C-alpha cells in the first residue's frame, strides 16, 4: 500500500500558537514521526517557537495528540483531522 493510496485517507493537522510557545522542545522530542521542530526566528517572548510540518523525518502526522497533552503553554492549540 503506497502512502497516498486512498483519497479518503485522513490528513491530520497541528495548529501551533507560535506567540505562546516558549521553545521547551517537549513536543519536539515526544512526536514519534518528528513533525515538529524549532524555527530560527523569534516570537514576541524572545523564544524560538515550534513549527508543524505534515511530512516529518519519520513519516506523516498521525494525529496522536501527544504534543497537545505535553505542551505546558497551551501553544499546541489544536489537533484536527480533515477527510475528503
Amino acid at each position: 500500500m503506497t502512502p497516498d493510496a486512498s483519497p479518503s485517507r485522513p490528513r491530520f493537522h497541528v495548529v501551533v500558537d507560535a506567540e505562546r510557545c516558549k521553545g521547551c522542545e517537549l513536543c519536539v522530542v515526544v512526536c514519534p514521526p518528528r513533525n515538529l521542530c524549532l524555527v530560527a526566528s523569534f516570537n514576541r517572548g524572545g523564544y524560538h517557537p515550534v513549527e508543524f510540518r505534515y511530512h516529518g523525518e519519520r513519516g506523516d502526522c498521525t494525529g496522536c495528540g501527544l504534543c497537545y497533552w505535553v505542551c505546558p503553554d497551551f501553544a499546541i492549540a489544536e489537533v484536527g483531522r480533515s477527510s475528503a
Partner: protein
Amino acid sequence: MTAAAEVYAPTLGALSALTGKATHYCAGCEHGTLTRLIAKAIDELGIRERTVMVSSVGCSVLAHEYLNVDAVQAPHGRAPAVMAGIKRVRPDLVTFAVQGDGDAVSIGLLELLNAANRGEPITVFLVNNAIYGMTGGQMAPTTPSGMVTTTTPAGRDPVATGPPIDATKLVASFERPAYVKRVFLPIRPTPAARVYNARGALEGARSVRHAFEVQERGGFAFVEFVSTCSVNWKLGILDAKRYAAEALEPLFPAGLVRDRFGVEGR
C-alpha cells in the same frame, strides 16, 4: 470518484475552562501541563460552572488566572482546610487545589493529613518537584538525599535533615481517603526509541478526571504528580526529565495506591 470537499474537524482543541492567558511558568514546567489536564477534565465532566479552585502558595499560586473557574486564595499550606469549609457549606460545589511539595508536605502537612483523616470530599493535586521552586531552589521535605540545593550545597544530608517524605504513603496510611495515586508526569527518555515517552501526561489526564469523579461520590481524592524544576535543579529541560526518571522515580514510584469506588476500572 468525485473529489469531495475536505471536512476539517478538531480532535483536540480549545477548552472553555482555560482563560487563554499566557502562563508565568518556566519553559517545560509540568505545572503548565497539569493546568491543561485539569481544564480538560473540567470540560469533559461539565463542572466548570460549579468548580472552585483553592489557590495554594508556590508556583501554582497564579493558576486561577489560567483556569476559568472561581477561586479562593488560601494561606500558605491551608488549602485543604479552606476546601473542607467550602464543601461543608456548599456540598454541591466541586473544589480542588494544586499544591506544591513545599506547600502541602512542609508547612501544610497538618491540614493535608487531617483533611485526609476526616475523609473530606475534596481533591488535592500535589506537584512534587523535590524543591522549593518559586523561592529559588531551597531544600524541601521531598528533596532526595544527596541532592544539591541552595540550602544544602553539599547535598542533602539525611542524618541532619531526615530522609525525604513520601506524601502519598502518608495519605494512604489513613483509612478514609478514597482515591490515592501517584503519577510520573514528565516525559520520559526511552533510549531504544529515540523518542520521549509521554505516557505520564495521558495517565495524568485520566487521574485528574478520576479524582474529580471520586469527589463527586463523596470521597477524598489525592493525586501526587512527580515533576521537574529544571531552573532550580540547574539542568537543561530535557536533562531535568532524565534526572527525574533516574533519581525521583525510584524514590517516588508511580502507581495506584487506593481506589475505593473503583473509578479506574470504568
